[in-house]
């Protein structure tokens, strides 16, 4: 949207006129006063009066009607942002006021107050995983970005877009200004710009959005110069705000897709491994179609909700044996195919061993081949593959399905059906076994994670639920026992495994779920929450409904196990293992913590019989539109 710019020249003319007018108006009064004064008794030399027509040369203007920040706000509002998550910072104060004040109206996007920039970034991460598009994160260019960097890194590893706007000042050097603001995160963002004019700001802002939404998706960063924000709009026509276009995701070339289809159709034991694949329900549905065509088992590496966990072909908990028996493995957006093809143990010497049998074909379809970053090693060890297609797997799925349909012979279809019926029987038994597994330690205190998962399912199963937790530390219970069918039923793991992700990312997902009327449920690790507990206040302040259930094992338990490993290796006993990793003495009262920030809470609960009733009460609170927290003292895993 373009706007004609009028105020600047008129304002200056107005000021000149006003000053001249004031001088004109003042003069008669002075003359009047002078006429009332007695003339001096004797003649005194008088300085000749200054010409009346010229006002003072330098007039300081402390008010502007429209500054650069208003235009920047127009640019941001032209993009499909629903929210801005931010902790305040003086370097974007003008832009903040333009957006939240009467000019911007604090709508589209709405400002979400965060108590730490890492919360803001992680909320953006969780929101994008649920909503399929980025929200905007504002941060101060130096101190704020450093706080936000961990959240940005997780999103990068997870191939999730966040749109970061930095306030920065080049004109006023100091400890809150930086020459190249994006430098500190450039290794783990997709693109950045520091535009030197408002026209370039508009172009860069629109370009950044499109880039963030093009696979491989990841955070982008735009610097909003603080002087440019605060100075009046320059004279002349206002810059145009370009129309935003999102590129079509890259699709695999037809020849390679046909070859992949041929290999899959001819395979006796094809296996599909999927990680950061499904962005949408359509992506999930298409994967189901492909798997059913081939009657191939699907191993979900849990980067997204890729494949319904109750589907007969979901064999995620049988990965090693299936990969070992496969003659063709198809990897879809798998970050580390090396980990798919090999197994390793972490003893004194890490003895990786190939699981994939000799001669088995490995096909990879994923956008990571288009990645141009290299400093961080999140892709893991190199794995040779037989056919690598650098393209967006979700977009490539449709032509792959069609190609497989063309390739499959009647005999191959018949063989596939036999294969599928065997897998269905195994899947059903795996589910039954998981339910039986949950009964072990059923009445134990601290509460077993299996019991807590079952109690939580009972509490939320009647809702249109959305589970939004990183659950590796929770023994994968919901993935093993809850029926996850819809794409929003889960949002996958964190990507970078950086602590401090889960609580704010869950809230970001809840923010996205709110308008859809979904019931958001989060199993929250205690150590993770304490990185940025202020997220609870944000939930209460903005009335974001979310049920947080504490997996309170009173430790950074992963690190407990690491230290235990080292102590065992050194044969030094376990007595000191808790030092530096246990979160006890005193135990943190998470219910009080939540209550202090305006969140309904109960706990700590250590008796499993008390869990169900507490959850029921908390569910009622969340259904009324507010956040709640139930603190459950749990076993380690």
């Amino acid at each position, binding site marked *: 949207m373009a706007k004609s710019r009028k105020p600047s020249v008129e304002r200056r003319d107005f000021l000149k006129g006003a000053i001249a007018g004031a001088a004109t108006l003042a003069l008669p009064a002075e003359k009047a006063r002078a006429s009332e004064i007695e003339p001096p008794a004797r003649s005194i030399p008088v300085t000749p009066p200054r010409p009346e027509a010229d006002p003072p040369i330098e007039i300081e203007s402390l008010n502007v009607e429209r500054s650069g920040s208003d235009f920047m706000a127009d640019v941001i509002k032209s993009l499909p942002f629903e929210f801005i998550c931010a902790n305040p910072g003086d370097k974007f104060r003008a832009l903040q006021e333009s957006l939240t004040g009467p000019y911007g109206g604090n709508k589209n996007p709405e400002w979400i107050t965060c108590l730490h920039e890492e919360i803001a970034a992680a909320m953006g991460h969780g929101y994008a995983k649920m909503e399929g598009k980025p929200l905007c994160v504002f941060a101060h260019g130096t101190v704020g970005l450093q706080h936000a960097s961990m959240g940005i890194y997780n999103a990068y590893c997870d191939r999730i877009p966040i749109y970061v706007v930095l306030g920065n000042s080049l004109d006023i050097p100091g400890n809150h200004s930086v020459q190249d603001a994006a430098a500190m995160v450039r290794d783990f963002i997709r693109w950045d710009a520091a535009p030197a004019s408002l026209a370039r700001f508009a172009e860069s802002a629109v370009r950044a959005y499109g880039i963030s939404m093009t696979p491989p998706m990841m955070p982008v960063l735009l610097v909003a110069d603080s002087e440019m924000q605060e100075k009046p709009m320059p004279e002349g026509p206002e810059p145009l705000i370009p129309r935003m276009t999102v590129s079509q995701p890259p699709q695999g070339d037809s020849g390679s897709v046909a070859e992949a289809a041929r290999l899959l159709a001819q395979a006796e*034991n094809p296996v599909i491994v999927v990680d950061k694949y499904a962005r949408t329900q359509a992506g999930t549905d298409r994967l189901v179609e492909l798997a059913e065509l081939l009657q191939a088992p699907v191993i979900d590496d849990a980067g997204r909700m890729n494949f319904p966990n109750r589907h007969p072909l979901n064999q*995620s*908990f*049988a990965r*090693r*044996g*299936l990969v*070992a*028996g496969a003659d063709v493995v198809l990897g879809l957006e798998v970050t580390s195919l090396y980990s798919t093809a090999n*197994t390793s143990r*972490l*003893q004194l010497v890490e003895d990786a*061993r190939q699981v994939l049998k000799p001669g088995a074909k490995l096909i990879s379809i994923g956008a990571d081949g288009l990645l141009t970053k290299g400093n961080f090693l999140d892709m893991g060890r190199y794995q040779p593959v037989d056919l690598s297609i650098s393209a967006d797997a979700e977009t490539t799925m449709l032509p792959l399905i069609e190609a497989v349909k063309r390739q499959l012979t009647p005999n191959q279809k018949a063989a596939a059906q036999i294969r599928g019926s*065997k*897998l269905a*029987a195994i*899947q059903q*038994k*795996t589910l*039954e*076994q998981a*339910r*039986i*597994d*949950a*009964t*072990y*330690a*059923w009445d*134990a205190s601290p509460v*077993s994670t299996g019991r807590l998962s079952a109690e939580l*399912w*009972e509490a939320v199963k009647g809702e249109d639920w959305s589970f939004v937790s990183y659950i*590796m530390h929770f*023994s*994968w*219970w919901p993935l*093993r026992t809850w029926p996850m069918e819809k794409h929003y039923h889960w949002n996958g793991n964190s990507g*970078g*495994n*950086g*602590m401090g992700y889960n609580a704010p990312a869950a809230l970001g997902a809840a923010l996205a779920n709110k308008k859809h009327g979904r019931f958001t449920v989060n199993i929250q690790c205690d*150590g993770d929450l304490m990185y940025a507990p202020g997220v609870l206040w944000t939930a209460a302040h903005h009335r974001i409904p979310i049920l947080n259930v504490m997996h309170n094992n009173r430790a*950074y*338990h*992963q*690190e407990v*196990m*690491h230290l235990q*490993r080292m*102590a*065992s*290796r050194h*044969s*030094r*006993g*376990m007595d000191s293992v808790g030092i530096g990793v246990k979160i006890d003495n005193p135990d943190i009262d998470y219910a009080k913590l939540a209550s202090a920030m305006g969140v309904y809470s109960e706990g700590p609960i250590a008796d499993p019989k008390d869990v169900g009733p507490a959850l029921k009460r908390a569910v009622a609170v969340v259904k009324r539109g507010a956040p709640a927290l139930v603190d459950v003292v749990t*076993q*380690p*895993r």
Partner: protein
Amino acid sequence: MHNNSWHSLRGNSNALRLLRSIMALGGVALLLPIALAAAPAQNTKPPGAGNAAQGKLLFESAGCAACHGNLAQGISGVGPLITPPPFAIPEFINFLRRPSGAMRLFSKEELSDAQLSDIHAYLQSLSPSSDSDAPAANLTGNAETGKRLFMRDGCYECHGILGQGANGYGPRIGPDPISMQGIKNYIRKPSGNMPPYAAKIVSDQDVADIHAYLKSVVRPVDIKNIPLFTK
């Protein structure tokens, strides 16, 4: 802080129950283990015929653990529990030479008959019934002491305070634990991600006590009697 798991992310379910369930289905024989376990358990192998210690090394290096688990406890949907070994040595060898289902074939060049006998002995050593033959069996365990050691030595960190296991971290080891000797063998030189426990940290007597504790763990209530699972 990061939170990578060093453990495999998947698979530690009770394969015995899986096996029984699949057997009840009748005729479903995708994997070796299914066919293997479907056969009647005829363990006629005389104790000591194979070398269990050597068998442990072979079990690991030949990749048996990939489908059957590091303790041969089975992996749900992949390979069943195979301790005690369901075949006597001759049938065991015959099966591995001409497997059915998804079980891969092991030729004599890969594993000799003697080596398969060693693996058989290892599987036998893991069985609860093998304690009468084990060197550590003359130790009497104290369950109360074992419970304290189970917590002190951090066993509960991965296996849960009742040994119930945690998916991706440590398999279920109680109730009905493997043999005392099997536990001892394994923790001294684990084949998976289990930290190694030297005797000076967890003595043989400690193992006996921990074993006694795991044996004392009460079996869970039948799932049919838990309302949350029957609604």
